[in-house]
């Protein structure tokens, strides 16, 4: 995926997603990066960064600093009534958690403060940002 592809993806994301959207759920495949709907985030910025797309998420209260959610080789953007999904990404990271697609394409690896491991992808999108 070229930088031009990432720029197009970012433009499409901005065009299809209302600025007022608040995400209460962040999932890397089946892993809930945060407790679902305990906190909320708004998209403060979206920009290509080399082979990655970087989303800057700001807490919905407007307090604190934006935090980068980084997506390496993202593809397959879907915006729907339940939120945003990206079908594919090679690697994702947010707030100390990191996940990556394993070479077999069937599993993903995961690293958190609690440890490292892996799970089956089972057809789920790499990223889910749920409203």
């Amino acid at each position, binding site marked *: 995926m070229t930088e031009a592809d990432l720029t197009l993806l970012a433009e499409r994301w901005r065009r299809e997603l209302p600025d007022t959207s608040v995400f209460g759920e962040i999932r890397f495949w089946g892993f809930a990066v*945060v407790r679902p709907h*305990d906190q909320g985030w708004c998209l403060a910025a979206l920009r290509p960064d080399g082979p990655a797309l970087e989303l800057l998420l700001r807490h919905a*209260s407007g307090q604190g*600093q934006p935090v980068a959610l980084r997506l390496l080789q993202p593809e397959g953007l879907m915006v729907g009534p339940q939120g945003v999904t990206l079908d594919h990404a090679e690697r994702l990271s947010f707030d*100390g958690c990191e996940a990556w697609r394993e070479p077999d394409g069937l599993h993903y690896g995961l690293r958190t*403060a609690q440890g490292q491991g892996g799970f089956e992808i089972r057809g789920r999108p790499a990223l889910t940002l749920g409203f």
Partner: protein
Amino acid sequence: MTPLPVPPMNLMFSSPLSAALLAASALLAGCSTFRAGDGLPPPVTGKAVVLQPSDAAYSRAVIGAAVKPAGQGGVVTGTVIQLTQDVPVYRMWSGPTKVSAAGLTNRIGGWWSYDAPKGTQAQYREAYEICLGWNDLTWVAQCTLKAGAVVVIGPGQSVSAETCGDATGRETYPANFKDWQLYLDKPWARPAELVCPDASADYPADPANIAQRKR
């Protein structure tokens, strides 16, 4: 909207199936404090009314954010209520020194309980299905949910090891039909509905007895 101290089953639950599920599970769990059909749980009995989807305020609860499938946390089934009196609510959080990458604590969030924390920290984590990575559960905050607030209450949904990110499969939490959860959508935007004292009023909990301050 009509005050219903003991609402009929069809107002309490989204479907007869969920009511039956709750009743069966409460029996299996040996729950003695609250049974399906008793009306609202004791801490909010007489202090809230049940809203129906046709009520104007119902949508403020955002029940779709609270009710989740098995393995994903949230609540199994939700009842939308509007408080008619102030009610104390409780939340365990990670304390003032634990800040996220955004530089924020997790003192205020969507998930609360109307029962005061009790037992051990581990028991609380199990009862409210809170993954280790989500919350340290080291401090207790008590706030006031004001009359007029619209929230979702319901039995906590199960949480899978994958949702928690535990590849060993050990960290899982079953659904809990005894200790109900309370969901307040986007609490940071609802200062008239959730009123909290300064964080200095919170206490660090003793892990062996979270009802008490840590010494």
